[in-house]
């Protein structure tokens, strides 16, 4: 044994050689780096599916393109084709906008409000729903099936219908006119959803991995934290995205339960820009809308990149 190359030490080829190989198979290699190995072999299907996707995406694509362009143009030809480039519509970034005689507050504090609310909702929602999803997926206890059924059924009650009732609850708890109240309501109405989604992901995690962590000395919490949670990334990607979006875009409850304008968020701000649709300054509106969407898009791209990269495999069934 001694003197031989240790087993398992796979040969590492010199960088130069790799480089030349890389060049030759550059295209293929790139694809591999991104996704490991091809899942499907069929180029044809890939092309077809891309075409289909493109076609069905046209309305969205065009309308958002229009939105984006019109935020940068002074005039639109027939309201369709942008004519002149301008940053005028983006002026709200560096100065409070005046509209009619209303002076809107600067957008930054509002953005901060929105961001805080969105992050708070996201974090608490992910936290609470991964906990409860784990319990529902892994524990056998009385009432489990019932709780799960209930969480689904609750969704049959629309948020608006509950508005008055929630109002009374917040009223009793003295949480009216606070962002806290809105946040709690928000989370509560959404955790049933995220719990149910995340539960599906828990179900797909093999038991033996979890067992293995018990044997390694984890208690339930540690298992959940160190082993399950990382494996759950795709699921977390999904629910964090939705909770972030709903926090970011929260409108109805802010609008209903908040009476102080300092506690505005971007959604209500935008709404106020539009007013009753009549006085819409489309350029400004599209600029603000684009501004509004940027963080969410970033969040999306970030979470997707970070969380969807995982894949299982190489294990025994």
């Amino acid at each position, binding site marked *: 044994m001694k003197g031989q190359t240790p087993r398992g030490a796979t040969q590492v080829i010199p960088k130069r050689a790799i480089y030349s190989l890389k060049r030759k198979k550059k295209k293929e290699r790139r694809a591999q780096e991104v996704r490991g190995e091809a899942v499907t072999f069929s180029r044809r299907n890939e092309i077809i599916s891309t075409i289909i996707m493109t076609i069905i995406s046209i309305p969205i694509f065009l309308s958002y393109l229009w939105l984006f362009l019109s935020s940068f143009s002074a005039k639109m030809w027939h309201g369709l084709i942008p004519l002149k480039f301008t940053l005028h519509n983006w002026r709200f970034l560096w100065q409070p906008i005046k509209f009619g005689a209303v002076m809107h507050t600067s957008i930054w504090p509002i953005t901060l409000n929105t961001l805080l609310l969105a992050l708070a909702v996201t974090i608490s929602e992910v936290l609470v729903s991964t906990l409860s999803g784990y319990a529902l997926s892994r524990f056998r*206890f009385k009432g489990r099936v019932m709780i799960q059924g209930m969480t689904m059924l*609750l969704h049959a009650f629309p948020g608006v*219908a*509950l508005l008055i009732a929630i109002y009374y609850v917040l009223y009793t708890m003295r949480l009216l006119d606070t962002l806290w109240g809105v946040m709690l309501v928000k989370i509560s109405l959404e955790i049933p959803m995220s719990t149910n989604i995340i539960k599906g992901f828990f179900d797909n995690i093999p038991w033996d991995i979890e067992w293995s962590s018990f044997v390694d000395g984890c208690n*339930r919490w540690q298992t959940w934290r160190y082993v399950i949670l990382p494996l759950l990334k795709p699921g977390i990607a999904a629910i964090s995205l939705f909770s972030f979006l709903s926090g970011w875009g929260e409108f109805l409850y802010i609008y209903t339960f908040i009476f102080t304008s300092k506690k505005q968020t971007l959604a209500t701000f935008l709404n106020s820009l539009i007013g009753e649709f009549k006085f819409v300054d489309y350029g400004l509106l599209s600029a603000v809308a684009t501004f509004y969407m940027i963080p969410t898009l970033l969040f999306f791209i970030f979470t997707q990149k970070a969380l969807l990269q995982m894949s299982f495999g*190489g294990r025994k069934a």
Partner: protein
Amino acid sequence: MEVKTSSVMGFLGPFLILVLAFYFIPVILTVILSFTSMDYKLSWDFTGFTNFEHFLTQSLTYKVLLTTFVYVALTLIFNVGIAFLLALMTTYFTTHENTAMFFRAIWLLPRLTPVVVYCLLWMWIFEPTQYGLFNTILSLFGKSSSIDWFSSYPMGVIVFANGFIGASFGMVTFSSAIKSISRDYIWSAQVDGAGDWQIIKRIIIPMIKWEIMYIFIWQTLSLLNSYVYILILTDGGPLHETEVWSLYAYHKAFKYMEFGNGAALSLFLVIIGIIFTFISWKIFGFRKMMGQEVSR
């Protein structure tokens, strides 16, 4: 493994407390509310079943009910169908992660957009003059007269607007679910002779069955309850052709401020939703799914 109640409660506690306080109690309150004649005075005057009697005796109710069914069914097909299609295409078929990302992002845009802006966009898309996007596209194909989408196809308009925004939910969930399927299984199926279609049908769909059922039910309930986009786009018109139940309830509650009446109407919707959910559970085998992992 045995589980102690304390640790169950530890995991489930925050969830239960929140849901109880801010969801369950309001639900109960709403049910009570539906038996009152609460209006702009916000007083709890019990009137028994009058609210229910009231709307059950109106012919409009039945028209609205029908509209609701049509709307929900169409949007659901569009919604879940496209969502699944997109998820598959962006995870299974597309090998370039960036392409996939691009399409996923595009389809997420509607959800990222503020509601009003989104509606404005659709108003522009369906604008009856020749400046509307669709009319422009049609004119490119040589069709001269523009179509008044809102009045000719009001249902189409709201289905599209809601479908495009709803698809992203399923899309993201399904993509995540497909991504978490171990590649071994797909390889193995390929070796077994399965083409793409077979893999989708026999491996992917069964393995994300839970998500599909969940999204299906969830979206149905969401659609039953959705009114905002309709409110802004058509406000139920023309001639109640797009007046779905939840909008009807909204109108009652917040336009005419008959909160009790509105609650009664939503309660009826809830019952429909619950019945639907039970039927779907039957079809999908709820208990079986809940218990599928019990074996170990």
